[in-house]
């Protein structure tokens, strides 16, 4: 049985007061609750402050390119379906640079968990607008304020019938840990969008702001009710819902595939009889 200690304790490069610390704790907590050992888990991240997170715990890690966590995670899961694959990165990374992969991963319903540190800003590059930045948000790159409508990942994921769609908040780490545990348990694509304060570059959507503007979904919310889910998913601003917003049980990509294999285990083996038969078809 793993414990919090199994996942270690590392020095970070984050700012004091950053929401990432609580998020990291919640991740460890969620892994423990899920009963996972470090070696069973593969974290795949992109680039950004959020994307450093997997360096700060014990697990297998592939820290790749900005925006490209999802395809790497998908490839790893396809190759070795026994790995618990968690893609963890920032809002800019997953919804911005990686937007196309986000759409594809939802459509594939690949059995990975995606954990987005959504601080509504590009933090590592010192504060430009991200796809989730609110309209009017002023930065050095957007001195007149953001003109684009913000991307609501939860709404798009629900509209696309993603398998498991949830929102967490670093101000509620216990709740977040529970979401993580459930997302991992879900067979298929799981998204957890996490409200995370950035003390250095987002002075609007602060910890207090998130606390004041979010609410826990009541027990009466049925995440399997698509109609209700899309309404809740649309909420943002004054009333940001936290919890599992939508879920369904459509079979995951691997479950739907016509043949299933663990390539990491069959690697190194080629059946020469099969191969010869294949070659013969070309004669």
């Amino acid at each position, binding site marked *: 049985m793993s414990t919090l200690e199994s996942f270690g304790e590392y020095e970070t490069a984050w700012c004091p007061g950053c929401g990432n610390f609580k998020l990291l704790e919640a991740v460890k907590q969620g892994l423990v609750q899920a009963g996972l050992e*470090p*070696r*069973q888990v*593969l974290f*795949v991240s992109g*680039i950004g402050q959020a994307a*450093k997170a997997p*360096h700060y715990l*014990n*697990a*297998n*890690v*592939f*820290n*790749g*390119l900005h925006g*490209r966590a*999802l*395809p*790497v*995670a*998908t*490839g*790893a*899961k*396809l*190759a*070795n379906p*026994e*790995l618990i694959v968690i893609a963890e990165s920032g809002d800019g990374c997953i919804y911005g640079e990686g937007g*196309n*992969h986000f*759409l*594809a991963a939802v459509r594939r319903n690949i059995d990975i968990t995606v954990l987005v540190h959504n601080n509504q800003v590009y933090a590592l590059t010192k504060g430009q607008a991200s796809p989730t930045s609110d309209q009017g948000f002023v930065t050095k790159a957007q001195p007149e304020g953001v003109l684009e409508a913000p991307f609501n990942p939860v709404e798009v994921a629900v509209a696309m019938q993603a398998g498991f769609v949830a929102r967490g908040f670093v101000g509620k780490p216990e709740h977040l840990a529970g979401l993580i545990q459930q997302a991992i348990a879900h067979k298929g694509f799981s998204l957890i969008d996490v409200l995370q304060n950035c003390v250095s570059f987002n002075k609007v959507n602060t910890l207090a702001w998130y606390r004041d503007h979010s609410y826990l979904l009541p027990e009466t919310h049925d995440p399997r009710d698509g109609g209700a889910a899309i309404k809740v998913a649309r909420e943002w601003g004054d009333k940001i819902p936290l919890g599992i917003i939508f879920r369904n049980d459509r079979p995951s990509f691997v479950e739907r595939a*016509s*043949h299933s*294999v663990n*390539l*990491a*285990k*069959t*690697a*190194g*083996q*080629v*059946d*020469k009889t*099969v*191969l*010869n038969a*294949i*070659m013969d078809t*070309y*004669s």
Partner: protein
Amino acid sequence: MRNGTLNILIGGEAGQGLVTIGQLQSRILVRSGYSILSTQSYMSRIRGGHNSFSIRVGPDGVLAPEEMIDLLVALDSTTVELHRKELSPKGVIIADEQFELTGDHLLEVPYSKLGKRKQMNVAAVGVMNSLLGLEQAVAAQTIDQFFGRKDPKVQEDNRQALEKSLEWAKTIENKTLKLAPVTAREKMLMLSGNECLALGALAAGLKFYSFYPMTPTTGIGQTLAALAKTAGIIVEQGEDEIAALNMALGASFAGAPSMVATSGGGFALMVEAVSLAGMTETPIVIVVGQRPAPATGLPTRTEQADLEFVLHAGHGEFPRAVFAPGTVEDCFFIPGRALALAEKYQSPIFILTDQFVADSYRSVKPFDLKDLTPVRPGADENAITQPYRRYALTESGVSPRLLPGMSKHLVVADSDEHTEDGHLTEDLSARKQMVEKRLRKLEGMRREVIPPEFIGNPDPELLLVCWGSTKGSALEAAGDLRTGGRRMGVLHFTQVWPLVQEQFLGLLEKAGQAVCVESNAQGQFARLIRRETGFEIKRQIHRYDGLPITPEFILRELKESR
């Protein structure tokens, strides 16, 4: 009819079934014991326009495509207009009598009387077979198999069309096209470059293949997709090329020998992930099927203008190797070599093909699969010294690669500069060591380079230098000149990076004159040789109109540009 071969060209609009006729006829020839080289020339459209399928056939090895046509099978009258001028003196044009063509060399076929509209393909094959003097049984059996035996009605129609067309053609008095009989009829396979790449990779232990469709490499993915279930591999279409390569890197990291294929424009999108493979030291094989660019260019034609691009693709410095198969057979062996090298040196390895070799069919001897050892990813867990460090500094630059979840150790890979344990670092002395470690791997790769092949007179007055798919044409052109009394040599590179000058510089210096032959406008390989050795190949032959370099092209250029 160069060098004892015969050249058939089937021409028509896209969608008229000329590829069917071409493949069918090619297969019949191969099964009849002949050597073939079939090449395709097609437009970037699905119907209409003008496409062609050429089959060069002979009793012995056919080296290269030929420009002159001995047998022109015209599915439309445009084909006759376009290709008449290429007809050899004794050449024959097979065309539907309904085209009401005029002029010499014509053999007008009453297709409407030989079978139904749908069976015209078969009838054309029948007429060809008769002219070529092939055994009827082989054709009959091949046609049967080709169209499947599902629908007995169709099968019967085909048989009748074949018989009627053979019958009709018997009356033709033309012996010039009769093929010389073959001596020994060995079992041969008919394979395209793309198919060989797919099968060669499979045989070498490929487990994961991802792609985004792009001419001319789509065929690799489709060949593999058809076999995925049987062979227990995974083939996945990505949402874009960025995804295709990143996905393959994820799969490779997790333990699946992986490959992707694309063309120049798609590869352009993969460039960042190439650098990622270099930094994370993740094995990957990348096939780049070249076609004329820039940008979309001529999507269905051929060129060799991505050499410098592939050689320098990706930001920063890291080792790589680049193969360039010279023949369809090479396309079978190179993937195995590439997968093994990728695994051994944990680096991106490239296979540079082009539309010409990718779409060419050849008769090849069945490959010997007995001694193949499939690539086995990852290091032995038991040989690991504690604590496990994914990027341990070693003399060879190669560090022990374990697979996540497959041992008791945790595996950490990082795209940032990192310490030996894989965690990101900003320690600038660690940076220096890691740069050197990565680049040391190039030394090992240099020791394993496939040396260039030298064929010809040991002391040539003229040395044709070439790489990749131009090999056959260079060989045939050199052969012709040798017959004409000149001392000729050909130096062909199947591996274009790294270059080991000891393997070839002497040959270049010794030659009376070296001529570099490339399908690009700037002489990219000649530039590379100069960069690496200082040797300037002053005389160069370039082709960049989208067609493959032929022996005739080389001979013409040699005459003109002296």
